[in-house]
């Protein structure tokens, strides 16, 4: 049963980490625009980066 001394804190810690991650995401407006986020990932293409470089 001694193993509980490690396991319980580890389990709790993992839970707490995911809770903290969720709260962080919520606070950072990660859930504000779910439709946009889904499509945005498809649109970041090289074209943009090239012209940005030209600007500089």
């Amino acid at each position, binding site marked *: *049963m001694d193993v509980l001394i490690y396991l*319980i804190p580890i*389990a*709790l810690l993992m*839970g*707490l980490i*995911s*809770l903290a991650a*969720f*709260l962080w995401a*919520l606070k950072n407006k990660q*859930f*504000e*625009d*779910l*439709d*946009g986020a*889904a*499509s*945005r990932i*498809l*649109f970041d*293409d090289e*074209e*943009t980066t*090239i*012209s940005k470089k030209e*600007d500089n």
Partner: protein
Amino acid sequence: MSSKVCQHCGEPIPAHFKNDSFCCHGCAHAYKLLNEMGLGSYYEKRTFDDHIRPLIPEEAPKIDYSAYTEGEENIRALHFMVDGLHCAACVWVIEHILERQPGVTYARLNMTTRRLTVKWDQTKTTPEKFTQTVFELGYRLIPYNPEELKRKDTAEEKSLLICMAVAGFAAANVMLFSVSIWSGSDMGDATKTFMHWLSALIALPAIAFSGRPFFKAAKIALKQRRFTMEVPISLAIILAALLSVYQTIQGAAHAYYDSAIMLLFFLLIGRYLDKRMQTRALDSAENLLTLQASFATIKDKNGSKRIPIKSLKAGDILIVAKGEHIAADGVVTNGYSSTDNSMITGESLPQQVIQGTAVVGGCINLEGALEVRVTAVGDKTVLAELSRLVETSMQAKNKYVHIADKASRIYAPAVHLLALSTFLFWFFYPNTSGETAVIYAIAVLIVTCPCALALAVPSAQVAASSYLLKQGVILKSGSALERLKDIDTVVFDKTGTLTEGNFKLITDDANSEDLRIAASLAVCSSHPLAYSLVQAVNPQTKAAPNVKEIPGKGLQTTILNHTVKLGSRDFCGIAASEQTDHSELWLKTGEKEPVCFLFEGVLRAEATQAVQQFQEMGFDTILLSGDHSSAVKAVAQKVGIKTFFAHQKPQDKQGFLKHLQEQGRKTLMIGDGLNDTPSLATAHVGMTLASAADLTRVHADIILQNNHLLAAPLATKFASRVHHIIKMNFAFSIAYNSIAVPVAIAGYITPLLAALFMSTSSITVMLNSLRLAITKQGR
């Protein structure tokens, strides 16, 4: 058919326009602009959304942005509502084109809410400059003040989500200990108590934190001496927690931490789903309202300026361009034209306006530019009058009692009574202590707690609304579906709802030469009859030379030294006679006998079928229209509606619906005009089309997104299915309770049993609701 479409806006290119790629200079310019900026791939990525306004490049309006601007010294920020957003590529192109402007430091467009935030360096650019490019692409930016839109609802939704997350975390971890306790039959008492203390350590703070939405609501309810669902919920959670602490101190075998926190978690899910539905409905209504708060052009010393409609004053001279809405009631002081009043009155044909004619705000100016002296603003306009009629009926509608509230009114007292009788029974039962009686009573409170009951309605509604959204039906009010299942009478509007607003040429014996000439004149006009004539003859018709449009009368030109006229009866020199059943256009070539073309309104392709489906479901169908009786009669006969009324003013329509309601009928009103708005609000359920006016959409309960009428009977059928599922959900949770409660009263409930009952009933209910979301079409 013209197969050429504009490369920028995707609209067909008019036949008389000598260009294969673009429909106008604006579109050509926009195309060039994007390619020059290296954003040409936009055209490959985008997809058009049919029910969103096409892209029409235009000049940015001259708006005074200073009232909306915020931010620090140099970096300023503005918030815009974006009109004309079709797809994700639109988001991409708007953000990129803004960020490439010198001086713009930040541009982020939220696709879900269609709201854009721009930050820029005041020393390098101005809002007028950077908005211009976006307008040149055909999108419109409407500034808004975020403070005005910020509601406590969004904050509440967020805090519910946080509560849910905390409760979920705590429930999972407490369950970890509970499962070990349940399965570890050889566990020593000391270990068990230690596990209980650990559970308490997690559960108690979590309950105190996540339970607040319920505790607060319960407190308010008790203060007002009402019994809501929150009272038994709060009581059960608090008592379960206290009992568990007591048991843990005593070193007893059972503690209910897991039940308490799991209960809270499930309840929060239900509460969150419910809130989300409401916020979504409100969001769409707000977007519409902000778009509506648009601008009008008025004359001033330096020519003209754009001001918000809100700040119009009586006496201002409005300049209304062709195709624009007239912003306020007034009298025409200059120009002649015709106005499309169908939104206000339901009349399908344009009305002629000349100097001195009174016009109503909300009408569309069809032909020449007009100057209108504003006579009434704000509360005094016809539009405001309509809004007032709407307000009063909305108040009546808000009194509707949701099925969930009805259930809780019976449920809450019943649960308390049950717990009390359990306590009394065991208290007076020989050989049991008062302590046992309290424990058993609390166990009753815990197992009866309405997890499944609280999930029954919101889970079904969320599943249903997501299914309906896919079918093009937007539910704007939370109780719309619930009310839709009650209806027994369907009232239709004619113009724009059953008919398309277009006309069909029904004269089939006309000389083809006459038709050709008439079409070559008609192609120069935007009058609906002229448009229909061109479509009927040949959409590629080339315009005759030097056609003059005489607004409100007709078109005129000279061909081979003959004056050719196309237009109204008296314009062609014919004495007015009896009104016919049909709309007509007359053609007079030189001294020849005038030729008459007859038209009739085009029914929506699916109108007859939709009416039939409603009749098959056993509903009464009624047609109410503001149009002339002959036109109304023709449509009614075609779609098979026996009861119809013509010449109905908005007040008449509303009165008619009120009368029906007084007879105990539950009405579904389907209409799209501003004149229908009061009746939509009065009806038990108001349904409108996406093409309807903003105000109408704001006050309807349901919007048919694709203007597809068959979605109306579909939604109605679906509503009774949803109701069936909700009733089933209630039946499930009552069935579970009827097993669990006797066990609890008898004192045999253990934490394991309580957890099993609670989770199985909640999960059954949720799975049952999910069936709605995966409904196949046609069921």
